[in-house]
């Protein structure tokens, strides 16, 4: 194999830091595909979970338990006529979804799925993430404006005001966590995403528990602000369907509309990753400092395989419970096949966990470790995604002035106070 492919094996750096453009491109491709698939899965999960919150079944027809529904939706949206209103600003109407999409996907370059499982590590990583994700709102704003219609315009105005106000609280909450990274011998913190997780590793504590309750408050502020930042319920003022019909994307349809949705879900995953990286220990498994015996490492490395085994079991149960009518034959076969695929993945992962159980430099061990990192990171993201759905099922929508009041009069002062108290606590402790 050429040197530029093999030279990266065994490196503990990200491809960006190692200067290996080939693997950087591979990572970019993997992340792009992964995020797109995750968005589709999230689409299905949201419809399904929301339906079960609301005593409905949700999608059931396309594939077993509606598993293929996102694909059907994607095909339908892609084939739909692309309507641009005649009075709209053609070029901006065309380009607006792309702005949001680009911003949402660009941030993934610095998200660390593991100590070397990121495209690149920037020494301004967290600033880059916050900055680029704030560009995404430009897409929403110009989309609302370009539609040349009242409801989208109001949606765009709401969205821009909302983003600007919540970004402040969000940034301050992050800064208080960045302050915590400087609690080391040198007394210098870091803005690098990988560096932040490593700081938590070195200090032996997730920042959510650091200086309790300061870290928790900062996390809570971020968790609230990130819902507002991604325009999700109960802060979905920009697209409030009962007030503004659909807000900024009222005039959009087909593929362009689906790009907005893709950007929204990608942004949800991105902001969740920030929260996880900064407060919840990023790729670290639970209790890496307390349960540090190799046996514990082995037990935790079984988790990915066991998760897939559990999913396979659920699929098998679903197959068995399916009515034995000939109408369901295809669905049964599909679900059984899905269970088989899941079981195969589970089997492979378990084999890998056993093969790479000794923490040496063998390829299996490296692979096993990498899978562990990505698994724990993705699991934490999944929890956040579920929370997003849960919020949506539970809460009514805020009113715009109340949203502003919460942002400026509650979150901002609290985050400032947390920042100051964190600084004081840091000085006192060191």
């Amino acid at each position: 194999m050429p040197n530029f492919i093999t030279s990266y094996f065994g490196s503990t750096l990200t491809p960006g830091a190692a200067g290996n453009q080939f693997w950087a491109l591979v990572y970019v491709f993997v992340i792009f595909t992964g995020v797109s698939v995750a968005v589709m899965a999230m689409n299905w999960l949201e419809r399904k979970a929301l339906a079960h919150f609301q005593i409905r079944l949700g999608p059931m027809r396309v594939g077993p338990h509606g598993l293929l529904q996102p694909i059907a939706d994607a095909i339908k949206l892609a084939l739909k006529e692309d309507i641009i209103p005649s009075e709209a600003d053609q070029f901006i109407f065309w380009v607006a979804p792309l702005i949001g999409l680009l911003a949402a996907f660009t941030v993934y370059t610095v998200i660390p799925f593991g100590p070397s499982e990121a495209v690149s590590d920037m020494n301004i990583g967290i600033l880059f993430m916050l900055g680029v994700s704030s560009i995404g709102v430009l897409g929403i704003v110009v989309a609302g404006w370009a539609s040349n219609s009242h409801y989208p315009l109001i949606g765009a105005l709401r969205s821009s005001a909302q983003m600007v106000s919540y970004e402040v609280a969000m940034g301050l909450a992050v800064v208080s966590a960045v302050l915590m990274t400087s609690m080391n011998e040198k007394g210098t913190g870091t803005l690098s995403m990988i560096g932040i997780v490593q700081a938590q590793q070195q200090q032996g504590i997730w920042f959510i528990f650091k200086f309790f309750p300061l870290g928790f408050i900062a996390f809570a502020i971020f968790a609230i602000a990130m819902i507002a930042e991604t325009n999700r319920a109960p802060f979905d003022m920009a697209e409030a369907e009962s007030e503004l019909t659909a807000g900024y994307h009222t005039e959009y349809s087909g593929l362009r509309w689906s790009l907005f949705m893709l950007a929204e879900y990608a942004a949800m995953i991105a902001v969740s990753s920030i929260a996880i990286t900064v407060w919840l220990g990023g790729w670290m498994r639970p209790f890496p400092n307390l349960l540090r015996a190799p046996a514990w490492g082995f037990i935790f490395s079984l988790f990915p395989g066991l998760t897939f085994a559990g999913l396979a079991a659920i699929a098998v149960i679903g197959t068995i419970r399916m009515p034995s009518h000939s109408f369901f034959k295809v669905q049964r076969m599909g679900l059984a096949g899905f269970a088989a695929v899941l079981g195969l993945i589970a089997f492979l992962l378990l084999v890998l966990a056993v093969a790479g159980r000794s923490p040496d430099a063998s390829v299996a061990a490296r692979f096993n470790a990498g899978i562990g990192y990505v698994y724990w990171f993705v699991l934490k993201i999944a929890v956040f995604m579920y929370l997003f759905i849960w919020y949506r099922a539970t809460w009514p929508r805020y009113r715009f002035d109340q949203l502003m009041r919460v942002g400026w009069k509650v979150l901002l002062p609290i985050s400032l106070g947390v920042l100051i108290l964190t600084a004081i606590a840091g000085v006192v402790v060191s």
Partner: protein
Amino acid sequence: MTMTVPAQGHSAKDRPKDEMKETPNEVPNRDLSHSDSHLDLDTPEKPYLDANELIINMGPQHPATHGVLRVILKLDGEKVLGTECVIGYLHRGVEKIGENRTYAMFNPYVDRMDYVSAVSNGLGYCEAVEKLLDVEAPARAKYIRVILAELNRMASHQLWLGTHALDIGAMTPLFYTFRDREEILKIFEKYCGARLTTHAFRIGGCQYETYAGFEKEVKNFLKFVAPKIDEYEELLTTNRIWLQRTKNVGVISAADCVALGVTGPVLRASGKKWDLRKAQPYAAYSEFDFEVPTGENGDTYDRYLVRMAEMRQSLRIIEQAVNGIPEGPIMAKVPKVIKPPVGEIYHSIEAPKGELGFFIVSDGSIQPYRVRVRPPSFVNLQALDLMVRGLLVADVIAVIGTIDIVLGEVDR
């Protein structure tokens, strides 16, 4: 508030032929600059609106106007400076139809006015005609009427709660209320074969005897639904966002309510204890023990609480009625061809949305000379402008929801 009804056009026969050619399909269209409008939209002296003023058409195709209501909003940013309701998109001429049908034939039509509480409509109409005929329904019929009407009140309030919560952004209560409303509709279906537009009552009593197991099913329903009401309240009553969205929103005083003729839960939430079931009892309501819940502030939250309390009171009434339902005939002696004596009658009942009145003029023939309906939705909608001025767009949605209108009844 000026209610503007779109130009209906005259009926085809009294219009000259050439005029019909010119405007074959006259679209109900309104000139925004006509002098009646109090919004002074786009007057020639000031061609541009103020820097931040904006005119928005909410409806007639809008997800949250509960049908085809069109509200013209004049906004300053998001603040509402004034509203103007344009109604009539669902006008079917029910009152005119009434003049061309016999008394019995008109009975099903009234179900189509407030289609979510069809039983109450039928009850009001039947009682009005009975008063005109000077007959009285037998006691058993009255009890059945009360049971069905109160079940219908529950169904109507449940539908209101679901859609109102959906307007404010809480999706989940909608499905919970629809699940429970389904049980009521099942009872209706078993009783008279129809779920929505029931046509349950006849002039002089009830057409159908209760089916076997009716009482047991109603009692089961009572047991089933009481905890469900607690469930709705759990989701909403102490929900902080719900409180913020509904408290002090759309406040209306009792005096204003009375001045505008607003009735029903809206009136009671502003503190006036006025319920026709108590004030001028009809059917068998005088025999039951129940309370009239009232609010204090007349805001959206109080209206919510009043309706929730009314659902519980309805349960009480139904329980008493089911336990005390007498035996006996269900139809009074009514002639086959109903020909009331010459005269006029106004009879009103407490529909779920407020006072539903029927004014019927008889000229002694088999058809009414004139039927006029006093629909609660139509009258209550008058209060919209008063309630939303100075609030925000989101509040307009909340207030439209809280007034609880059904466009079929507003436009008739």
